[in-house]
């Protein structure tokens, strides 16, 4: 054993943890090497002095008086708290459920109204012998079906290319194409924690809105609620971290603000997402 090897054992020696051949080898080295012996003595000496200094009874600190009482009282309070928390959660669930029901009802009534109007328009057009609205509508339907089947047949790869295509399009703010009579706004603003809750809320809303796309040839746009309803907001780029699909609709977005479109026209949904919270949800159908 050389000096370097011997000195590397200093902490083990201070722990009295050396046994067997290692201890014999070190002892043998120390018996021959004055420098190492001095080194070990100095280390032992220092160890003892530092230990004494740090355990000097005068320097020891004590918990403040009454700590135990305070602590046990806090613990008792803390463990009583969960009941309140659950009550709050239940109340929140009730509110969320009624909000969803309202949203669904409003969408369906609008669908019914606009469906009637669509038929009226078609009849009017036929009567006038002008543009064939029915044909336009069926074209829109075909396109949305195609998007739909792409999404369903191969959910992974084609989906992202589709999203890329959507992103690549230059976004043109929607111009209301129908008369104010058919305009309807459904707004719900709520805060939900977790992507699952956000996904569930969106899926429900889009399911409710899907008949409109079919009946009305609407386009759904997901826009930044911070800028909504500004006429021409600059929309943040969407990418595929969150993907939701309902019928002809597809939403793609990152954890930031989110934008997505469907194949139809004239409807917009504004939503904001951050990493863990679904913040606002505003849906406007024109």
């Amino acid at each position, binding site marked *: 054993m050389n000096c370097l090897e011997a000195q590397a054992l200093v*902490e*083990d020696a201070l*722990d009295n*943890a050396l046994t067997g051949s290692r201890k014999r080898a070190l002892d043998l080295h120390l018996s021959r090497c004055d*420098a190492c012996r*001095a*080194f070990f*003595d*100095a*280390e032992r*000496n*220092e*160890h003892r*002095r*530092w*230990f*004494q*200094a*740090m*355990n*000097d009874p005068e*320097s*020891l*600190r*004590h*918990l*403040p008086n009454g*700590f*135990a009482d305070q*602590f*046990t009282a*806090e*613990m*008792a309070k*803390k463990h009583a708290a969960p009941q309140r928390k659950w009550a709050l959660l239940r109340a929140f669930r009730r509110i969320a459920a009624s909000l969803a029901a309202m949203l669904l009802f409003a969408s369906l009534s609008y669908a019914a109204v606009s469906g009637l109007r669509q038929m009226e328009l078609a009849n009017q057009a036929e009567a006038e012998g002008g543009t064939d609205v029915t044909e336009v509508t069926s074209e829109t339907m075909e396109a949305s079906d195609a998007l739909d089947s792409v999404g369903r047949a191969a959910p992974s790869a084609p989906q992202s290319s589709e999203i890329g295509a959507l992103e690549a399009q230059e976004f043109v703010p929607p111009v209301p194409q129908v008369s104010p009579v058919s305009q309807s706004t459904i707004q719900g603003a709520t805060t939900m924690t977790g992507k699952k809750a956000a996904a569930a809320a969106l899926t429900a809303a889009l399911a409710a809105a899907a008949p409109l796309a079919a009946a009305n040839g609407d386009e759904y746009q997901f826009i930044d609620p911070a800028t909504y309803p500004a006429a021409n907001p600059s929309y943040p780029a969407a990418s595929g971290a969150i993907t939701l699909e309902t019928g002809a609709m597809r939403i793609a977005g990152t954890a930031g603000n989110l934008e997505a479109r469907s194949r139809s026209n004239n409807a917009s949904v504004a939503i904001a997402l951050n990493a863990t919270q679904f913040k606002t949800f505003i849906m406007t159908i024109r």
Partner: protein
Amino acid sequence: MEIAEEIKTDPEKGARRLIAECGDRLYDVAFRLCQSEDGAHDLVNRTLVRVIERIALFSGSSTLYTWLYSILVNFWRMDMRSKNAEIVTFTDTMPDRPDDRPDPAEALAVKADAEAIREAVAHLPAHYRAVIVFRYFEDMTVPEIANVLRIPEGTVKFRLHKAKKVMRFILAQTIGVSDASNEERKQ
């Protein structure tokens, strides 16, 4: 009855016993690590809450102190990280050696010496401070420290080696006298 058993059967009584038996020592270690009374109070509080809430996880394979300390150290590290880590450089924290310091003989008085040693610990960078506190204040062996800090034994030895060097350097500055061990090392 073991404290752990008592906490399981009667949490409040167990908590009181835990505080009575381990509270001061825990608080002392906490203070030496974070160097503030408020910080130490908070660390002890959180550690005790965790211990009582997770007592079912205590297997008894390590001592209760080892478990307490490893929880405490974990909270302390989290605090350090959230404070964006404590960056201690020797130049700006090194206590100045005052010109009017007492003469070396007096400075070497055991009490002043002890005070200087405790003061030096406070000036160590955080991860060196942790090994020194457990080594000298708690008189732990290298494997015990490794267990509490959850780092390999080799890392403990390396940090001890470095920490002791820094301690000696600080002491040489404050006491103004490099102790005997340093003299011998120079040879």
